């Protein structure tokens, strides 16, 4: 079904905005687009905006974890923002919040990265 990815190269992070439904069927596209941006364009930190994500299951957790490992190996960090309540439960269950930071908005996510740098 409908799934869209918007990528923006911000000064200190790659901003990835997801829209629609992220499941096993759409996860491959996200993996390919993010791998590409991280490897070819050398993105270090990633801000993942879930504001317009209407559905996500454990296949989404898998791609996010995979991309986290990719940037963490180079010393990068990942911040997830605008996470809907039902997705917070998925993130909590999987322990993803132990390695990925949560922020209320893109601004807050970027500000948090600045401070940490």
């Amino acid at each position, binding site marked *: *079904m409908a799934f869209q990815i918007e990528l923006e190269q911000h000064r200190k992070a790659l901003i990835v905005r997801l829209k629609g*439904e992220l*499941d*096993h*069927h759409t*996860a491959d596209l996200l*993996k390919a687009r993010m791998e590409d941006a991280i490897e070819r364009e050398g993105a270090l930190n990633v801000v993942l905006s879930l504001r317009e994500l209407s*559905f996500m*299951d*454990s*296949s989404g*957790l*898998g*791609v996010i*974890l*995979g991309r986290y490992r990719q940037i963490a190996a180079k010393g990068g960090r990942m911040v997830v923002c605008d996470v809907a*309540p*039902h997705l917070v*439960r*998925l993130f909590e*269950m*999987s*322990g993803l919040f132990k390695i990925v930071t949560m922020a209320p908005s893109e601004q807050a996510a970027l500000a948090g990265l600045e401070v940490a740098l």
Partner: protein
Amino acid sequence: MSASVFRNAMTLQFPSLSENESFARVAVAAFVSQLDPTLDELMDIKTVVSEAVTNAIIHGYEGRPDGIVTVRATIEGETVRIEVEDQGKGIEDIEQARQPLYTSKPELERSGMGFTIIENFMDETEIVSAPGKGTLIRMAKRIESRRKQALFN
């Protein structure tokens, strides 16, 4: 409690194509909508159907497009029962499969959280599986309808 309990049922079958993951969860959600669930309950139902159907496609049929996935749902009073079945590979060690973060396909970036999510979101979960025979996931959840919440609040 009224003497006559509302009952309904549906069966859905489709080939093991990843295109059908989205279709299956929307169809089951539309069926369950008859109970006027909250948005959170509907999201739980969509998520567990997505997990179980994805597993049938990836693990049961290992990506082959010609397997048949069967989804059954019944409503009995306030309880929704959902079954997802495949005639695929089957599970050798069910206890191991249920462990959080365990996956037999790390190369596909599976998170190993499917069964954990299903068991968390549903009131009852049962896994029936035998190697070479296929897998049946049985789940049940009581729906606190919005209509009822409105009445008692």
